[in-house]
Structure formats: structure tokens, C-alpha cells
């Protein structure tokens, strides 16, 4: 048995009267986990709080798909572990090292070293409520 939703109801093939012409072509609903590659061991979903990155198109409540295998690239958005906090922010490469670049006002860039670590690079975004 295939399991899933089709088990209990009608899936486009199991008609009672006329045979469904779609019988050999049923494919099921689109699988977002596959599109977002969420089954790979280095992909992690991360929920956003706060709206400092609104100009970058990242809103509170958004689900980011973080890729822990991707190499950092200047200008990309990353998930960072910084002095005991989990942040989502942009990165820059200056004077031979990576920096976390704040989007919020009144904040200073933080060099990526010691207790400031890039955890994963943001690869995708899901918004369930537009």
C-alpha cells in the first residue's frame, strides 16, 4: 500500500463508473520537501524572528532553508551562532576575514572568529502566509 492521503479517498483514478483516462498518469501533489531538498543531511529549516532584514525580503515568521555544506559568499545571508545567540544576517569579506554585517541601525559589524561562527548559508525561503 502506498500510504498517504490517497489511501482513504479518491485520487483521480479509482472512479466507480467510467474508467479514468488519467489512470496511468497520476503523480500526486507536489512535494515541497523535495524541491527544497530538505531530506539532505546538510539542509535545516530555520524560523525567522524580528524584522531587521525586511529590506532583504526576509520577514518575521518566514522559514529559511539553511545549507550547512554551502561555502559562504560575500553578500549572502547566513545563520550565525554569535555569543550564545542564533542570528540571521548578511556577511561581508574585508581585511582578510569574514564579517557579520548588521542590517539594523546602531549595530557594529562582528568578525567571524571564536564565539561568532557561520552555522549555515541561507539557500531558500518559504512563506506560508502572504
Amino acid at each position, binding site marked *: 500500500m502506498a*500510504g498517504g492521503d490517497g489511501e482513504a479517498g479518491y485520487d483521480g483514478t479509482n472512479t466507480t463508473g467510467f474508467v479514468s483516462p488519467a489512470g496511468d498518469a497520476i503523480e500526486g501533489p507536489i512535494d515541497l520537501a523535495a524541491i527544497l531538498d530538505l531530506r539532505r543531511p546538510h539542509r535545516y529549516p530555520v524560523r525567522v524572528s524580528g524584522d531587521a*532584514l525586511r529590506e532583504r525580503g526576509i520577514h518575521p515568521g518566514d522559514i529559511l532553508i539553511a545549507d550547512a555544506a554551502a561555502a559562504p559568499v560575500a553578500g549572502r545571508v547566513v545563520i550565525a551562532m554569535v555569543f550564545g545567540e*542564533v*542570528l540571521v544576517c548578511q556577511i561581508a569579506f574585508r581585511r582578510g576575514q569574514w564579517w557579520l554585517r548588521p542590517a539594523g541601525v546602531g*549595530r557594529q559589524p562582528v568578525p567571524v572568529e571564536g*564565539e561568532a561562527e557561520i552555522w549555515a548559508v541561507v539557500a531558500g525561503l518559504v512563506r506560508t502566509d502572504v
Partner: protein
Amino acid sequence: MPATFGLIDANSFYCSCERAFDPRLRGAPVVVLSNNDGCAVARTPEAKARGIGMGEPWHLVRFRAGCADVEFLSSNYALYGDMSRRMYEVLAARVPAVEPYSIDEMFLDLDIPVPDLMAFCRRLRDAVRREAKLPTCIGIGPTKTIAKLANAVAKASPDMDGVRDLRSPEARAALYRELPVSEVWGIGARHAARLARLGVATIAEFVALDPRLARDALTATGARLRAELLGVSCLPLALAAPTRRGLAVTRCFGRLVTSWAELREAMAAHAARAGEKLRAHGLLAGAMTVFAHTHPHNGDPWHGLQHTGRIEPTSDTRALIAEAIRMLRPLWRPGFRWFKCGVMLADLVPASLQSRMLFATRDPARSARVMAALDAVNARHGRDTLRLAATGIERSWRTRHHRLSPRYTTHAGEMLVARAW
């Protein structure tokens, strides 16, 4: 059989899973508690340094001097299971074969045409660290037993990049003279005591033993271990878990339970979980044991009850609950405070054999359809979304997990939260 084996294991696995998502725990002493928040089952080096022993009860250590800053967490098996899967997949993409030996250690086929296997293993560690977020150690050897030993040595000496290669007989000979034979995988306290009577203390003395003496002292296991330690591989990689012969669901109550209604509910819930496990493995059970007992150490009078009986082979939750309650009911005595209960299933057979049964009292096809629908709903919407009312509504007797971290990677409502900065 591969000519070179690796054993990779995650350091303080449960604690490392917690640290992967909670940066406050990095560098801090962390202890993960067993089911029901009973005792310490995983400790970071910082927690070990504070004198917290493996298996120590939480209620004894939580207020101990010097342990005020220790972070105690309930075991979050949904998270640990998913992180174990990630570790496996990172490895499986890079070596020819991986055997998941336990939740936190995996044997590797390291027959790989690379010029520098040590460097390869260091990159493997880096990949697991970066992608599955877990710190590990790797041992390399010509047999599984040697790889396991090499892993223990790598773990004990953090300065060696977490990789230890014991492929060369010279490297092994030096170690074998130093290490006690109890360090060998498969030699427990009883074996070590028996060997001590033969004057064997170190691994070197064990491998120098006459093979017949080794066999006499430790039966066939001894002969096999001796061969493995000498570099003769006897244990191949097992790539599929062996078929289960029995299955158990047992839990301590979150609080002591006195009423029949609560005991019955808990037993029904355990029977239901056992049914899920059976169906996940495509098996039917032909025998069942139910048991319950009072607290062994709190001063209450000891009372244990147990019953074993044959049942019509099934994996149907409704039948399993009915059988469990039917067995438990006549054993019930009022006036006791119950501490633990459980269901054990035996005589497991593949579900495909069911159609051959004579005189079946249930319609197997109909039962399979109902159970498949139940499992499908629970797989999609989370465990216990749909369950039988016999397993309780309030479930106040349930196992305690007061200090549970979020199920970051398996539950949509509990994802890692990052603050936009």
C-alpha cells in the same frame, strides 16, 4: 570483506545534538537525562569534570556543590534520531558502505583508493562536523575490533586530530602492551575476571595466549576476538539490521499510579505503541507478556505482576490493547502504588504469512486497511494525533520530560529560531 574498517562515533552524542542548535550550551557542562528524567545518560567533558558519573540519578546531583551551572536536559529522542540519520547520510555519500551500529557509532568500509587515508578521515570528520553538526572521532584498523579500539584511543587523546590509525602491526604492538584487555570491544567485566585468573591483564598478554586457552576461557567469542586483534577479520559489515525476535514497550510513570483506570490506560498506550512498532517492521506478534511493578527503592512494599500468553498473531492496535487488558485485569490488586508497566511481544512473524492462518477471527485485509489509515494520519500530523480512547485522554501518568529541548528538525512548530540582525 573490506581490508580496512573505520569506526566513527560522535562525542557525547546526545549532548552534541543539543549543542548543535543551542549556542548557549557550547563550552558549558551539559547532561542529558534518561527517560522520565531519571539519571545521567550523556555528559560533556565539562560535566564529567564536575564529578557527574554515568547513570547518576538527577535528584542526587542537581543540588550538589559545583553543579549549579550544569544544564540538565530531558532526552529528546526525536532530535537524536534525526541527527543520527544526518550523520549516516553524510558518511554514506563519501565511503563505499556504512553500518549504523548504534545511534552514535557507525562502522565504515574504508577500502578507498586515496593516497592518505588519515587525511581522508580528517576531511570526513570535518564534513560530519560541518553538515551534521556533530564532533566525532575515527579509528582505523584491518578488523572491526581493531577499528573500535583505535577509536577509543583517538577519543582518549584529543591532541591527535580525532583520528587514530592502527593498521600497522608495530603501532598495535606498542598499544597492546599498555592497554588492559577490558578495553577490547566484547570483553566485559566477567571475561576480564576470567582472563585475570589466567594471568592475562593486557591486550598483548591476551593475544599471546594459546588459542585453545582463549577459547576455553571465553568460548568461541574469545577465539574470534583474538583473531580480530591479530588483524584477521572475522566480522563483516552488517548493512541491514537483523530481524527482530521480540519487541518491548515499557515506561516508568511520571508519578506513582494507584487507580486501575490509570494503569489500564497506560498499558493500552504501551500496547498501541507496540502495535505501531510491529507494523513499521511488517511483523505480527503471536505471544504477549504484560507486567507492572511498584517502586523497587522507595520503601513501598515490592509487588510485581506478570502474565505471558499466546495471542492470535496480529499487529492490530485494537486486538493488542484488548489482549493486554484481558491479561492485566485478573492480576490487578488495589492498594499498591505502581511505578512501571509494560508490554512485551514475542513470536514475531512477517505479516505476509497471515493469510495462511486457519480459523482467523479477524478479517486481515480489513484490519490492515484500518491500521494503515491510522498510521498514515499519525505519520502526517504527528504521533498520537489519532489514537484509541482506551489509551487515555489526559494521560497524567505519562513519562516526565520537564526539560525537553525543541524537536528542531522534525516538528514544524519547534524549528530553530534565528533573530534577524
